[in-house]
């Protein structure tokens, strides 16, 4: 197996210490290769550790335990040249497209800076051509966009410009943290379409972070459900959403209001997530306090990831299935997807 582009090995991130410590991500292992471009969605409620995962992958924060590796090297030990490559090959898109913009510069500045920094163009004309192509790729008319100031653009335009900017650098992987949660429903589809274009035409992989399973279903091949920093379920997106196996995933899916009058959405009573769960709960399954199927064993030890038909599920209801052993990263979710799906990216999840 070739060295993965980006790999997380038993990564744990704890914020704070002592009594007030928060485990934002716990023992998370995951790798993304580059043989086939793929889109992996990471979904979960707010506070489940999604942004922490993104920031770890981008090297913005360091793990409390475990390693994040770029082409086999721990991010903390990259050489200057490697770091430069890392900064180019792995790009980020964030929720708030406003944050990236300096209100006093025209948007051109945002687009020319990476070209200059990474010396991507040999001449001004060449740079201009690259920018125009990138803008056109995300469905923007360069003539309408260039020369404008940020406040003259709509939220959807701004977000697409940040995507164009990422595209300029010809990255291998883009980590998109809730890229559409601040844009309008009607523009959402347009932006997601730009992401798909980048994926299909330029072979760029995506980690698509969202709290919205509907968009995850629409664009991703694989789906990882996080609950309180722990993988609850992972597998091909369509499989996980249509046949959720973990009780938390099932709850998530049932909570989506649908136009179906038979759903009885208003009736089911669900335990609150409750704040300040005590340490005892942590020892068992993090979902135990809310789970309708909770068993004594759930309170005692955290369930491992079981390899069920079609997905990896961290729940004792599936204890008959084989576990995905620690360190055994050969189980690829791509393989789980079977022949039907195009995706065969070497996504591996372990715990």
């Amino acid at each position, binding site marked *: 197996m070739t060295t993965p582009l980006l790999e997380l090995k038993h990564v744990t991130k704890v914020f704070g210490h002592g009594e007030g410590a928060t485990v934002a991500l716990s023992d998370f292992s995951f790798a993304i290769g580059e043989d086939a471009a793929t889109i992996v969605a990471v979904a979960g409620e707010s506070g489940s550790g999604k942004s922490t995962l993104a920031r770890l992958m981008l090297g913005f924060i360091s793990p409390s335990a475990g390693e994040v590796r770029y082409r086999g090297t721990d991010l903390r030990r990259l050489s200057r040249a490697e770091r430069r490559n890392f900064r180019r090959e792995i790009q980020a898109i964030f929720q708030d497209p406003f944050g990236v913009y300096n209100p006093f510069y025209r948007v051109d500045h945002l687009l020319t800076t990476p070209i200059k920094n990474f010396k991507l163009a040999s001449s001004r004309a060449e740079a201009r051509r690259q920018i125009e192509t990138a803008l056109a790729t995300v469905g923007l008319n360069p003539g309408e966009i260039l020369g404008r100031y940020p406040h003259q653009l709509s939220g959807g335009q701004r977000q697409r410009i940040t995507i164009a900017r990422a595209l300029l650098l010809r990255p291998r992987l883009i980590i998109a943290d809730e890229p559409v949660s601040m844009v309008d429903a009607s523009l959402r589809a347009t932006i997601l379409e730009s992401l798909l274009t980048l994926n299909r035409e330029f072979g760029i992989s995506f980690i698509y972070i969202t709290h919205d399973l509907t968009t995850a279903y629409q664009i991703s091949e694989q789906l990882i459900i996080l609950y309180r920093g722990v993988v609850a379920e992972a597998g091909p997106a369509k499989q996980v959403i249509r046949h959720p196996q973990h009780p938390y995933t099932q709850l998530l*899916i049932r909570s989506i209001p649908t*136009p179906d009058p038979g759903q009885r959405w208003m009736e089911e009573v669900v335990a609150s997530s409750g704040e300040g769960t005590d340490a005892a709960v942590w020892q068992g399954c993090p979902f135990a306090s809310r789970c309708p199927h909770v068993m004594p064993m759930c309170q005692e030890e955290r369930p491992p990831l079981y390899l069920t038909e079609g997905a990896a599920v961290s729940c004792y209801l599936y204890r008959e299935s084989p576990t995905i052993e620690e360190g055994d990263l050969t189980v690829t979710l791509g393989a789980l997807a079977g022949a039907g799906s195009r995706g065969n990216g070497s996504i591996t999840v372990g715990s």
Partner: protein
Amino acid sequence: MTTATTQTAAATLRVEDLRVQFHTPRGVVRAVDGVSFTLRPGERFGLVGESGSGKSTIALALMRLIKPPGRIAGGRILLEDEDLAALPEDAMRSVRMARIALIPQGAMNSLNPVMRVKQQIIDGILAHERERSGSRNGSRSKRDLEERVAELLESVGLRREVAERYPHELSGGMKQRVCIAIAIALRPSIIIADEPTSALDVVVQRQIMQTLGAVQARLGASVLLIGHDMGLMAQFVDRVGVMYGGKLAEIGPTREIFAEPLHPYTQMLISSLPSFDRETSFVKLAGQPHSPLNPPSGCVFHPRCPRAFEPCPARVPVLREVRPDRFVSCHLYDGAVES
């Protein structure tokens, strides 16, 4: 002719031909352009539409909270036969929260960050009691008030200790519950909820909507729910009004609208709903909404409408009752008017 204004006699709130305009430097935006609907006693009514279609503007207009450069340019807002649009500001102030309560859009930031939850509930209660009794301190003792706050918080599923907290110490769902507690504090007959859950995850969203449904049932109040999520509308409201470009395209009982949408825009909205059963992954709404500064002639939807025909660009369609309790504004139904 049957128009929307004659929908039913037993209405709590009757909105007639409401118009709201914003006078911007680049021209006049007719954000709400002749909207009529009724809110019946105890019912849940939904207003759904794309962003910019004028939903929040309607909510603010009903509360008389439109700020310059905007103004209510016409129409009547009849609350039990009293026209709120014509009420003096002082009188309107005593209507707010006491008779019509608003849970604003973006409830994440709707609480004053430097005041405790308790104070933010009490100041609303006291403002109205003072008004009524004319005294500066109102009639209640501090103990009574705190007990009332605790009861309110418990009725929306929060612990009474939350009263002492500051907003930043609460999760998004808890903040939204506090907003609901404030909204029901004076037992209003109408609760307007503007996208109350758009910032929350689905699990919390459902809990909040259940809470809202429960308090509404207890008060016997009517709820006007504003949103863009058709699925949420389907699960929560009894009747729904579909907004497009500052106008109502269609009004009807939720089940009937989902079973058989009449207006081409409603048809488009419903067919583009994402579904986990379908294999096709992406359905986009065709076309873009028009610029609010220069709306198309005739029917504002005609440039995007797959079924547009001759009268559409020429004449503005009127909202009519084409079947019992089904109101549509579309030339396709010009011949189908019941009499």
